[in-house]
C-alpha cells in the first residue's frame, strides 16, 4: 500500500510540526487525511470541520503554505514529493493544533458594521428590489461569502496592521452599502473610513486569488474607497 508523509502542526502559538505516515489513496481530500490521523494514529489531534462538502468553510487550513478548504482540496493536487504540510490558518490565534480562534475575525465583521440594519417593519409592504439594478448586482457579486477566513489568512496587510478590518469584513460592508433596503450606511461608511478601514488596503489581491468562491474583496474595498471619499468630500461622514 502506498503511503505519504503528512506534517501537522501540533501545539498553540508555540509548537512544532509532527510527521505521520498516512495511506495514499487514489481519491482523497486533505480533510480525509487529517481525519485519518485523528481516528487511527493520534486521537489527541484537534481540528475543525462540519459539512465536508464545501458549504460551511469550517475546515479551512494552511496546506503547503496556502489557505484552502481542506474538504475541497484533493491530495493529488497539492502533494509535493510525497509530502503535505498542514497548519492552522494564518493571522488568527491558535486554540490548538489546526483549530484557530475565529473571534477576532468576527469582531472585525461587527466593527465594519457588517450587519443588516432594517429600514422597514413587518407591517410595511415588502420593498421590491430588481435583481438587475446596478446596486443589487454589486451587492450580489459580493454576497456569497461564508466567512471561512481564507482571505483574512492570506492577507499580509492583516498580518502587518493589527487594526485592519480585513477583506471579508469590508467585502460584507460593501454588499450592505449597496443594499437599498439597508438603513445603516451613515454609521457603516464612518466605520470603514476610520483607521484600519478600507483605506489601509494595498490591493495585493491575495484575497481574490485565494477565495474559494472567486469573490473579489479588493474590488469591493475599492468601491468603499470611492463611496467614503464622496461622503468625505460632501461632509457627510459621521465623526
Amino acid at each position: 500500500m502506498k503511503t505519504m508523509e503528512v506534517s501537522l502542526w501540533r501545539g498553540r502559538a508555540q509548537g512544532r510540526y509532527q510527521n505521520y505516515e498516512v495511506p495514499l489513496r487514489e481519491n482523497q481530500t486533505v480533510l480525509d487525511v487529517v481525519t485519518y490521523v485523528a481516528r487511527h494514529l493520534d486521537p489527541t489531534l484537534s481540528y475543525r470541520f462540519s459539512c465536508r462538502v464545501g458549504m460551511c468553510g469550517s475546515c479551512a487550513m494552511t496546506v503547503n503554505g496556502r489557505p484552502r478548504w481542506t474538504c475541497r482540496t484533493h491530495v493529488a493536487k497539492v502533494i509535493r514529493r510525497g509530502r503535505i504540510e498542514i497548519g492552522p490558518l494564518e493571522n488568527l490565534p491558535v486554540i490548538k493544533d489546526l483549530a484557530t480562534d475565529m473571534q477576532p475575525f468576527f469582531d472585525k465583521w461587527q466593527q465594519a458594521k457588517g450587519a443588516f440594519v432594517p429600514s422597514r417593519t413587518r407591517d410595511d409592504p415588502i420593498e421590491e428590489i430588481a435583481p438587475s439594478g446596478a446596486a443589487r448586482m454589486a451587492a450580489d457579486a459580493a454576497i456569497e461569502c461564508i466567512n471561512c477566513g481564507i482571505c483574512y489568512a492570506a492577507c499580509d496587510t492583516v498580518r502587518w496592521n493589527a487594526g485592519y478590518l480585513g477583506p471579508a469584513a469590508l467585502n460584507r460592508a460593501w454588499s450592505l452599502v449597496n443594499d437599498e433596503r439597508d438603513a445603516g450606511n451613515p454609521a457603516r461608511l464612518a466605520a470603514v473610513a476610520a483607521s484600519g478601514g478600507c483605506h489601509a488596503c494595498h490591493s495585493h489581491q491575495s484575497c481574490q486569488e485565494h477565495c474559494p468562491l472567486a469573490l473579489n474583496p479588493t474590488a469591493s474595498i475599492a468601491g468603499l474607497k470611492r463611496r467614503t471619499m464622496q461622503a468625505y468630500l460632501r461632509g457627510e461622514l459621521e465623526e
Partner: protein
Amino acid sequence: MNVRLYFWQRLTAALMAPLVLVHVAVIFYATRNGMSAADILGRTRGSVVWASFYGSFVAAVAIHAAIGVRNVLVEWSPINERHAGIFATVFGCCLLVLGLRAVAAVALP
C-alpha cells in the same frame, strides 16, 4: 490610514504624476547636453515658472512621502500609530524646508 490621510496622499499623488513626467524629461535634457551648473542655473535663476513648478512639487512630495512613511512605520515597525505620525510629520517638515531651500537656491535671482 484613514479617509483624511488617504485623501491627501492620493491627491498629492495625482498632482505629482504629470510633474514627474516633466521632471524625467528635464533630467534627460540636462544629462544629454552635459549641462554644467552654470548652464542649469542660468535657466532657473529668476524664473517664476521653474520656481512655481518645483515649489509645488516639493510641497506635494513632502505631504505624500510623509504619509507613505507613516504607513510603512505602522505596518513594518513596532512603533505605535501616534509616534509614527509624529515621526512622519517631522520628516515631512524636513523635506519641505530642505526642498524649498533647494528651490530658492536655484530659482532666486
